């Protein structure tokens, strides 16, 4: 096109009516309400930090967040009940957001795990009171140097980092958008919106602050690195298709697009753009879900971050990221199936095996769970690869089941403490089953669910994804998955043996008696684990109805 033509793009001829040129964007606020509610609440949270006196901030924040999350969840339910998940599914906000089954389902899951995670954030009974103040698991003052006078002063003054609540909400809002983003820009922004607060949250542990900060730095640098790749991938994809919208790109990819201008025709010819771009975006998402070889941040961050954050992150991030991955692969790149499926096969296989094998020799419970989450990412990928409706719904179900079990497991980890805070070294868990059978039993339930023993949520999920994969013609994947879950079983069992069959250490940790908050978290998790294990049909139906993407 000529230079003048381009010039006319951003200069308007004088005299013409400029207002009429820019159409007012049409936003369906109702359908975006979940996200908007959370965002609004987050902003309120910021205001609370600014204006509410320190003493009552905690309560105000907890109140605001709980209300917001509940309201948002209610909104999601309402939308789903209104049929937006199925019949009325469509693209909202000028093509930026897709309101359809998967996005609503995943938003629901994210909100719930956010709520449950929030309880663990708000827990203040586990640590002994410092100077007569209840303390939670976050640093008294993130800015103060560990061990410095300022920190002591902050502790003495009974400061608490109540900013974590708005941060949590911001992260949640990002996660809500992530799986429902319907153009690459929204995808990228959402990615950053939920990543940045998490980076911060990681740095805010009360105990072991050095580890916490190290975790934050690693997570941040690697995260930024990854999102740079994602962005470049977006750029290339944009270059290929000349548009950011999923729908258009999809059309261009499978060549069903109608109005082809010469420039597009030119770039369309160049598949390298498409393939490299697609690969780079996928890589960014694989980083978020912690798939091998993009997993290496996971153990360190999971270990260093404050355990409530770890639990929330492990659950919600995976859900959001897999949601986005599904949409990308199913809506944008279905035309490329024959290119990315083999690659994903490889990724899934090494993820399943790698996670399981390395986990065997772990000695820290949080790292152990981190590797187990990697292995699980592999299992879910197997479902993603199925590229069938069953695949989608099975992945949705798996994510739902998995997130609850994970949060529950980490919540239990917060309970087992000794002088140095949480006793995360496995050796300290020896004989826990003798000291407090109940906690040990609950944890055993979670472990068995991770291991995929029948009558637990883990089994139902695993069966669902493997079934989808096998039906989708990925039988070898299923076999590998089965073998790696056999390997994985080994270390879950090891923990159970440790808890029940070995003698308690004299210097062993004590089990703190939590407030109703954590109890609620664990209770919900156990309930979910068992219900999804014994009577999963209702939730499978939900996932099935939600299994269709809108284009």
């Amino acid at each position, binding site marked *: 096109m000529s230079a003048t033509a381009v010039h006319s793009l951003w200069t308007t001829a004088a005299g013409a009516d400029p207002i009429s040129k820019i159409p007012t964007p049409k936003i369906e606020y109702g359908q975006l309400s979940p996200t908007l509610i959370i965002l609004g609440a987050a902003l309120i949270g910021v205001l609370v930090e600014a204006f509410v006196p320190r003493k009552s901030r905690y309560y105000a924040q907890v109140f605001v967040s709980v209300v917001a999350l509940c309201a948002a969840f209610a909104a999601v339910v309402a939308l789903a009940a209104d049929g937006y998940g199925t019949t009325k599914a469509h693209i909202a906000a000028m093509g930026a957001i897709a309101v359809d089954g998967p996005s609503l389902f995943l938003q629901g899951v994210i909100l719930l795990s956010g709520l449950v995670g929030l309880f663990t954030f708000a827990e203040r009974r586990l640590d002994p009171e410092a100077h007569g103040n209840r303390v939670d698991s976050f640093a008294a003052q993130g800015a103060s140097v560990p061990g410095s006078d300022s920190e002591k002063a902050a502790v003495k003054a009974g400061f608490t980092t109540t900013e974590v609540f708005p941060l949590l909400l911001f992260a949640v809002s990002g996660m809500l958008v992530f799986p429902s983003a319907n153009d690459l820009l929204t995808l990228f922004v959402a990615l950053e919106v939920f990543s940045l607060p998490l980076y911060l949250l990681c740095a805010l542990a009360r105990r072991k602050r050095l580890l916490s900060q190290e975790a934050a730095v690693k997570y941040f640098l690697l995260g930024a690195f990854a999102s740079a790749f994602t962005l470049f991938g977006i750029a290339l994809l944009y270059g290929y298709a000349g548009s950011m919208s999923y729908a258009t790109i999809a059309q261009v990819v499978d060549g069903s697009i109608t109005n082809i201008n010469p420039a597009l025709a030119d770039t369309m010819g160049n598949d390298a753009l498409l393939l490299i771009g697609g690969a780079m975006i996928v890589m960014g998402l694989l980083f978020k879900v912690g798939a091998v070889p993009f997993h290496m941040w996971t153990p360190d961050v999971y270990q260093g971050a404050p355990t409530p954050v770890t639990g929330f992150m492990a659950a919600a991030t995976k859900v959001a990221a897999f949601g986005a991955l599904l949409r990308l692969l199913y809506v944008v790149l279905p035309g490329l199936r024959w290119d990315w499926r083999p690659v994903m096969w490889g990724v899934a296989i090494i993820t399943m095996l790698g996670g399981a094998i390395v986990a065997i020799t772990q000695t820290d419970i949080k790292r152990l769970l981190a590797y187990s989450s990697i292995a699980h990412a592999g299992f879910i990928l197997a479902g993603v690869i199925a590229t069938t409706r069953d695949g989608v719904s099975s992945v949705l179900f798996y994510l739902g089941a998995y997130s609850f079990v994970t949060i529950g497991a980490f919540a239990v980890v917060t309970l087992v403490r000794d002088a140095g805070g949480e006793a995360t070294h496995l050796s300290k868990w020896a004989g826990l089953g003798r000291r407090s059978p109940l906690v040990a039993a609950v944890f055993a339930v979670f472990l068995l669910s991770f291991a995929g023993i029948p009558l637990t949520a883990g089994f139902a999920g695993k069966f669902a994804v493997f079934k989808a994969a096998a039906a989708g013609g990925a039988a070898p994947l299923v076999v590998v998955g089965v073998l790696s879950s*056999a390997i994985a079983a080994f270390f879950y069992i090891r923990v159970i043996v440790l808890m*029940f*069959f070995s*003698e308690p250490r004299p210097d062993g940790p004590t089990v703190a008696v939590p407030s109703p908050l954590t109890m609620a978290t664990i209770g919900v998790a156990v309930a979910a684990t068992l219900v999804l294990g014994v009577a999963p*049909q209702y939730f499978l139906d939900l996932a099935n109805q939600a299994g269709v993407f809108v284009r």
Partner: protein
Amino acid sequence: MSFPLLTATAALPALGAVATAAVPAARRTAAKWLALFVSLATLALGIVVLVRFDPGGDRYQLTESHPWIADFGVRYELGVDGIAVALIALTALLIPFVILAGWHDADPLETGSKRWRPTQGFFALILAVEAMVIISFEATDVFLFYIFFEAMLIPMYFLIGGFGDRAHEHGDEAAATQRSYAAVKFLLYNLVGGLIMLAAVIGLYVVAGNFSLAEIAQARANGTLHMATNTERWLFLGFFFAFAVKAPLWPLHTWLPNAMQESTAPVAVLITAVVDKVGTFAMLRFCLQLFPEASKWATPVILVLALISIIYGALLAVGQRDIKRLVAYASISHFGFIILGIFAMTSQGQSGATLYMVNHGISTAALMLVAGFLISRRGSRLIADYGGVQKVAPVLAGTFLIGSLATLSLPGLAPFVSEFLVLVGTFTRYPAIGIIATFGIVLAALYTLVLYQRTMTGPVKPEVAAMPDLRPRELLVVAPLIVLLIFLGVYPKPVTDIVNPSVKQTLSDVHKKDPKPSVEAAK
């Protein structure tokens, strides 16, 4: 719809388990009585099932069918054929004895040992195992079966790892580690088997679209469901592997000796007499029915493995120094016979195999429980630590002898009938294998009699001089089993009548007919 008898039979012990676990820690005796009562009630239900079952009737009776997980094509489908009925009866019968025999096995140890033994837990777990075993006998839905086939491992695992021989654990760390090794080995072995089966189960779903045994078998029969030869073989192998681990079949057997050696005698009985039967049962019900062609394809290899198990197990039993290990290897040998009978694919062989499952359950229970009483008296499992018991505890020795004789399948005792049937059934189709298997009976005599001679006869060892004879409770456990052994030895008809029709159907599933005798002499 009628009263869900089968569900009740499985649910009763399950509820009993929960109730028992809920008994406050102080009232351990109450828990014991509760557990015993529940197991007896279950036995009663089992007998009702036995009575309500009509050998001449449909293949699966007392059926129940409710939707469960439609999405996985899973239905809650129960139903029993003769084979299942026999095994359910066996299970329901043995559990009360197991509980009674283990009456004091879970009592807190005397001071000086920190071992943690929640009595309630022990008996609750036993009942839980019973419930799961029973329902996996009843399930006619592959998935339903699989779920309990797997879930069963967990309570068994805690029983093995949590409650070792009283004799061997005065806070002794080495024993504890050994025990947990055994428990982990048991669990991993069976879990791997189960997971491989899971792959096959999924495969089955992909091929068949549902899990209903009846539907699939029928669809296969009338050709509406076609399986590619290789698919069928792979699926068969997946299923068979799991069952062969459970059974256990050489060379997948090494978990059994450890598990039986480390667990208390009642738990050992639970493993070998009840839980392992699920494996052999499943071969008969699932492998043959779902994959007839593949079963026939694999038969030669399986027969050879079974043969190896028979001889190998017996020889190893001869070489053991530990009473329980010896019994374990003996069981491996016997499982060899059972599998041999199943895959000989003759009516004598399969009826014999089914009968064998029942008889082996009873005889092993008798032998193992008496051995347990013996061990609990002396506090050692080593054969070398005994001698001349017969002089100080004649009744114990006598019962032990009868148990041994049953194990070497002496005519007149139950195991003889089944073993002979298996041998004949095998011989009619595979003479060479039949003859080699016959050597097993000589070896059986060897290891049992050597065991008896070393422990019971000869001069009285000072350590056993003060050994008390069987107590009433213990006699109450052993006597009925012995009576049963003799009764089924001279009059097995009740069992065979129930079993025969089902075996006939199984054979027709695999399209096999008995070889005809060369001379038609029978009238």
